[in-house]
């Protein structure tokens, strides 16, 4: 494999090579092509989209709607109307929880999620369960992070109204059997919501092949600006849902007491939209498509293999999840004997190495695996073998810094 220099030329923040950025599961970096697309939008086509009758506004509308079409194609949606732009995965899931969950879940019903969900795919369902008097049921993973068929078949029942599941865990990096779970949940009559925040940057997603009813993801983990995300929803579900937010740009007629709402997708996009960052997301999709998921996966698997092989040589490191680097989606979560993850991250920061430490917005999972907090190194396609070498070298020196001898 080449050393990744080709890609790094596009990322000003990475070019100098002074920092090793291994916190890609939290947010990716953005290439110049994305930043320029956003800047070009504001410099050449800036007007309030969707309403104007003049050239600039029409250009802004076109740019925004083209971004929607590209996003739909990127995840295999049947039509652009099934794509709602949001701020991020969290907002997308909240939209489903408030507009679908609160209106379709009744007392005594069950909502099934997994214990490895990010808080963004957990708290909205806690809210719905509490408000409606429903039960929240947790699927628990095996030691290697996988959800077995036995587990989901025993917990998804005719009482289940919603199954909400992360496509890829942000802690284990494991890819959940979303397609199989969805098929079973549909047999039981439940609707399936997929949190795609950690999968969309790393693998080709096809929502129709997955069969899910809703799919949420963020732009910022896949080279886009922060503040733009999307929700895919099956048309017939979206059409029957109440708006999440109300106000401008989402109406047909308004009287003093009543309003009728706009068609999809605008019904769910109240207020002036984030067209600039939608254009950024569109440029990010172009960039990712040019690199290609085969190449992205090949590079990530190679780097993750080097990372895990090197870490396995350090007897005081414990890695969570599968032993197979190909089942980590670039995410390696670990602990170091005797060293708190926050101290580890601070010491590595002295060496210009960026990793995450803490509970990764998944406190119930931390409780489940019996760790107060963990450290996480996560790579993306633009990382290099050299960076992995630097990381492993500095990591092997942390315990000495923390007073455990050489």
């Amino acid at each position, binding site marked *: 494999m080449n050393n990744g220099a080709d890609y790094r030329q596009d990322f000003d923040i990475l070019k100098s090579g002074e920092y090793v950025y291994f916190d890609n599961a939290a947010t990716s970096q953005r290439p110049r092509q994305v930043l320029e697309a956003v800047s070009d939008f504001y410099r050449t086509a800036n007007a309030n989209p969707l309403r104007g009758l003049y050239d600039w506004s029409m250009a802004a509308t076109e740019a925004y709607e083209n971004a929607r079409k590209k996003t739909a194609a990127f995840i295999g949606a049947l039509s652009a109307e099934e794509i709602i732009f949001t701020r991020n995965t969290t907002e997308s899931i909240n939209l489903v929880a408030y507009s679908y969950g609160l209106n379709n879940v009744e007392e005594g019903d069950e909502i099934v999620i997994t214990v490895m969900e990010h808080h963004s795919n957990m708290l909205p369902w806690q809210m719905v369960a509490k408000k409606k008097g429903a039960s929240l049921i947790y699927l628990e993973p095996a030691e290697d992070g996988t959800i077995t068929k036995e587990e989901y078949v025993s917990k998804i029942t005719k009482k289940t109204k919603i199954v909400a599941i992360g496509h890829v865990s942000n802690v284990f990096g494991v890819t959940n059997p979303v397609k199989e779970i969805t098929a079973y949940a549909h047999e039981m009559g439940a609707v399936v919501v997929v949190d795609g925040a950690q999968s969309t940057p790393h693998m080709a997603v096809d929502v129709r092949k997955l069969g899910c009813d809703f799919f949420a993801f963020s732009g910022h983990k896949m080279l886009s600006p922060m503040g733009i995300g999307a929700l895919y929803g099956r048309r017939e579900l979206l059409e029957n849902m109440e708006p999440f937010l109300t106000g401008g740009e989402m109406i047909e007629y308004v009287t003093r007491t009543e309003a009728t709402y706009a068609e999809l997708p605008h019904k769910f996009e109240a207020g002036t939209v984030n067209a600039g960052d939608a254009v950024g997301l569109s440029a990010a999709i172009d960039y990712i498509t040019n690199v290609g998921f085969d190449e992205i996966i090949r590079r990530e698997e190679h780097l993750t293999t080097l990372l895990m092989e090197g870490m396995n040589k350090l007897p005081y490191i414990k890695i969570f999840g599968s032993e197979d680097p190909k089942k980590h989606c670039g995410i390696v979560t670990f602990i170091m004997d005797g*060293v708190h993850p*926050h101290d580890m991250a601070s*010491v590595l920061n002295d060496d210009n190495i960026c990793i995450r430490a*803490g509970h990764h917005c998944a406190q119930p999972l931390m409780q489940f695996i019996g760790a107060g*907090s963990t450290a996480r190194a996560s790579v993306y396609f633009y990382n290099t073998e050299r960076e992995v070498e630097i990381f492993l070298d500095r990591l092997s020196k942390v315990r000495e*810094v*923390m*007073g455990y001898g050489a």
Partner: protein
Amino acid sequence: MELKQLYREIVNEHNLHPVHKKKIENPDLVLRGVNPSCGDDITLSLKLENGIITDGGYEGSGCAISQASVDMMVDQIVGKNKEEAIRLAGTFMGMIKGEITDEECLEELDEAAALQDVAHMPARVKCAVLGWHTMQEMLEHPEKAGEIRQQN
């Protein structure tokens, strides 16, 4: 001070070989302090006689900075009266927030002043102040830490 140097010269000693990480006999005040975001969790015990802190100890777990900071703090406050201890907590927290930089003022904190550079690490501020915050809370609001006193 570079962070690694801070660990090597000050923090590690208190973290790996703490002097005050122990139960004390018949404490008058006991209070738990927790940083939920990072899992630092300490229970601080103090013994007071005529308003003077005569003994102190802590138990718990957490990052090296949180543990070392509370160990150094107990060093500083044993022998001081309640008001002095509260005042020192104010100085320490002012230092960590970067509001107090006067060296003479910081001298009072003795070894604990070594944590001054944590002011430049916003994510670690909570770790450094956990012990001091807990101590201030139990002295200013003994009702929150008073159950033990009644039991004894």
